[in-house]
């Protein structure tokens, strides 16, 4: 089994290192020094697991050889250039997207004829450096067919991921899960990015809890209008996450703190565009969308 993991941030690193224990894994990085570091030192995992995996890495997809599975794990904002760079390569591979929000599958579909799987991942970690990732939350990755794939294909990849020590589950239709996470992310990530608060008890009570509830309700209205039955209630997901005793720093908060571009377009942007398409009014998400984009603009 030959796997290419495209993108070696936190999620990409967690997939690459674990999958390397059961398959031949090559990692596509953006920076040469990152690739060199992985080739020389391997990829260390700490936290819930503790091992160092041997992986091959390069910045040029042509150096990675062929693949049976490509896991696209870059940030949403890097997706378009990445899709262009691997387009027409890896002809025999199935491609699986893992990005937050909606629309990553369409971007990949536009750049190649691969069979496509969708996924959403709830696992989380902290990237300590280019060659060291800490595995923090061992929550599952959910996988479903998208184009030219079946539930059996999704299950095969889920089984592979499980054999590598991560949690994964296959679904007939990923949209109910994907939309649950979309609404959850559009709500929690933007509130965290604007307030500077990690996902803690403030999100489930008082004034901020009311805002979170209002954002979730708007998201549910859009899902209903789009004909998607949610798998989980995003408000329940929110309350549950705040009770874990460990306050998670959503990636959008980390991005804002580091003055990096955020995933606002794929997350809230997708939701606001779906709301427009279905004729649902989402004043709170529209406000959050404008505020986070403006915050990105304030870096320069």
């Amino acid at each position, binding site marked *: 089994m030959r796997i290419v993991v495209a993108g070696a941030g936190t999620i990409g690193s967690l997939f690459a290192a674990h999958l390397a224990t059961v398959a031949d894994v090559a990692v596509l990085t953006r920076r040469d020094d990152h690739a060199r570091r992985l080739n020389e030192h391997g990829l260390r995992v700490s936290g819930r697991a503790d091992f160092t995996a041997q992986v091959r890495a390069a910045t040029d997809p042509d150096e990675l050889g062929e693949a049976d599975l490509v896991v696209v794990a870059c940030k949403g904002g890097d997706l378009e250039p990445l899709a262009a760079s691997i387009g027409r390569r890896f002809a025999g591979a199935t491609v699986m997207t893992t990005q937050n929000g909606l629309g990553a599958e369409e971007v990949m579909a536009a750049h190649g004829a691969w069979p496509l799987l969708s996924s959403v991942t709830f696992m989380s970690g902290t990237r300590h450096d280019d060659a060291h990732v800490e595995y923090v939350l061992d929550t599952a990755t959910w996988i479903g067919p998208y184009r030219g794939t079946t539930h059996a294909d999704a299950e095969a990849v889920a089984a592979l991921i499980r054999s590598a020590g991560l949690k994964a589950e296959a679904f007939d239709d990923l949209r109910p899960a994907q939309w649950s996470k979309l609404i959850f992310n559009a709500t929690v990530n933007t509130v965290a990015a604007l307030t500077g608060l990690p996902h803690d008890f403030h999100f489930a009570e008082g004034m901020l809890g009311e805002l979170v509830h209002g954002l979730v309700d708007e998201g549910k209205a859009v899902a209903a209008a789009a004909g998607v039955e949610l798998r989980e209630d995003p408000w329940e997901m929110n309350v549950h996450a705040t009770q874990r005793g460990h306050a998670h720093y959503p990636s959008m908060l980390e991005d804002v703190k580091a003055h990096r571009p955020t995933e606002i377009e794929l997350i809230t942007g997708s939701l606001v565009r779906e709301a427009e398409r279905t004729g649902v009014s989402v004043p*709170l998400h529209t406000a959050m969308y404008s505020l986070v984009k*403006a915050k990105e603009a304030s870096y320069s």
Partner: protein
Amino acid sequence: MKVAIIGCGAVGSLFAAHLAQLDDVEVWAYDLSREHVDAINEHGLRLSGAGEVVGRLRATADAAELPGCDFGIVATKAMHTSAAIAATAHAFAGGCVATVQNGLGNEEAIAEHVGNVIRGTTFPAGKILAPGHVQWDVKGDTTLGPYEPKPAPLDEVERLADACTRGGMPTTAVPDARGPQWRKVIFNASTNPIGALTGLTHGRVCERPDLRALVSDLVDEGKAVAAAQGIELDADPEALIDHAAKPEVAYDHKASMLQDVEARRTTEIDYLNGGIVRFGREHAVPTPLNQAIWALVKGMESSWTR
């Protein structure tokens, strides 16, 4: 006549130094910053920028030192109103107390301690450069009027307005001062927190069409709450917002709330958007966006102490 400025920050200092120019007015300033108080007593209170003024007055950090006064002008940050007026109310047993503060709720807080209250709104602004020295950034008008539940007599309001005007702070006395107050509150509530949440200056907020639309949505909620109370705004806050966005006016101005956020100081959000939400509830006017902005800024404040 005797006038005590309660809270001698930037705005309080503008009133104190100007009133001190008048021979017929004895000015006192009450402020908790001992350095500022000592500097004022030693060297006078100096304004520079929009004009050069030095006022000679008595400053104190000890409320018990204040003599009985004809007028008080409260100019603290809104969250300090209650403590400041509780400490100084004894000086106004026979006088009237005006607020020139930002936001909603200051009159109510003052009325809990004194009998004759004056609602006020002021547009001049500045910042403290050093103890005893204030940068006067923006000139502007002040409007005073009786606070209805515990009103000061209109002729007393006129006497204070006249003194301010003669001292160099143009001030008008009107029977109903809610219009200018709500115009300024709506302006501040619709723009300051947007700057504070995004880090953008006023001009940059206004040149992003989607963000400017959010500002207008916030303005509309504020206008609806004002209208439900029968308040007629003296001018459209939108005009003030667009005027301030001009390069020669306040394009590069960082809202005071953004300055507070950068310094991790508690903001006046409770008295701006919080005030609009509170009055909205009392008059059954929904204010979901002001409530969202209020919650976000409160969330930001709690992230500092987490």
